[in-house]
């Protein structure tokens, strides 16, 4: 059986690459919104994809939340799906920051745009450091404001082996919101990622 688990060195390496990617994403977001983003160390966790729904049950079950999927495809078999989760009550505030006019834009359009800005800036920064480049599928709303959230997350996570959880708090000068990003990665892409991390580690 192939080992998909990460060594402590690989985990530390990935954490640092994620920190740098977060720095790039926050800088872009700050310039875009003309505000300052207070950067914190994002908590990352690598778990079996099957455990994902249970991990988020407590945080989102029963609340109006939004779950948006974005597929990404890189070179050399590095691919996966990201899911951005946040409580729907945050969406209006984020939309106001982004300058959306409430009436003119549909909620679906607004949610996919937010996801795109938050997710792709981060993933582009990560890809750059992995000497890779990602292309993206169109964002897809898996769920919004319904209570069937966990079963929908189960259906999505079911297709993948490993999940990289990144808990992110975007704290702006006068407003903060929490969101969770989940990178779902298939087994062969995990092996590819481990090999890339080993290369980075071997350089130093």
């Amino acid at each position: 059986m192939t080992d998909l688990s990460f060594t402590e060195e690989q985990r530390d390496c990935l954490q640092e690459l994620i920190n740098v990617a977060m720095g790039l994403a926050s800088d872009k977001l700050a310039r875009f919104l003309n505000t300052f983003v207070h950067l914190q160390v994002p908590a990352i966790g690598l778990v079996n994809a099957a455990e994902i729904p249970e991990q988020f049950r407590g945080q989102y079950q029963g609340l109006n939340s939004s779950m948006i999927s974005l597929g990404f495809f890189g070179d050399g078999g590095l691919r996966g799906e990201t899911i951005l989760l946040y409580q729907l009550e945050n969406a209006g505030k984020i939309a106001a920051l982004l300058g959306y006019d409430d009436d003119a834009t549909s909620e679906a359009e607004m949610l996919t745009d937010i996801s795109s800005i938050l997710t792709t800036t981060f993933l582009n920064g990560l890809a750059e450091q992995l000497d890779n480049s990602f292309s993206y599928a169109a964002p897809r709303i898996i769920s919004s404001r319904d209570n069937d959230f966990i079963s929908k997350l189960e259906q999505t996570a079911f297709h993948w082996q490993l999940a990289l959880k990144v808990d992110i708090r975007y704290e702006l000068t006068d407003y903060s919101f929490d969101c969770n990003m989940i990178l779902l990665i298939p087994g062969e892409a995990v092996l590819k990622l481990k090999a890339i991390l080993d290369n980075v580690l071997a350089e130093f």
Partner: protein
Amino acid sequence: MALTALICDDSLLARNQMKKSLPAAFDAEIVTATNGLEALTVLRGQEIGVVFLDLTMPELDGVGVLEAIKAERMDVFVIVVSADIQPEMQKRVMDLGALAFIQKPVNTDKLSAVMRQYGLI
């Protein structure tokens, strides 16, 4: 007498990247710290010539370290090495007395230029 340099970063990878990026001409003993509180303990306990300081760290962040260095009037050069590249953050650390701001991942040429500018090599 060779000086002592402190590398402060919570990531092992980043500490190793930093060590490896130091110019060969830099004659210094290297000590490390994994967060801001550890860095302050080192700074208060021994003579440190230069600190390579990360900003986003647990326990105490780099801004907190800079504030303590300023408040305690410590005589030490601080070069910030960070992923948080927002202009407002760069201005903030420079206002707190940092000599220079270097974007992560650290670039050897930029680092050498800064160190040469301040007579460290």
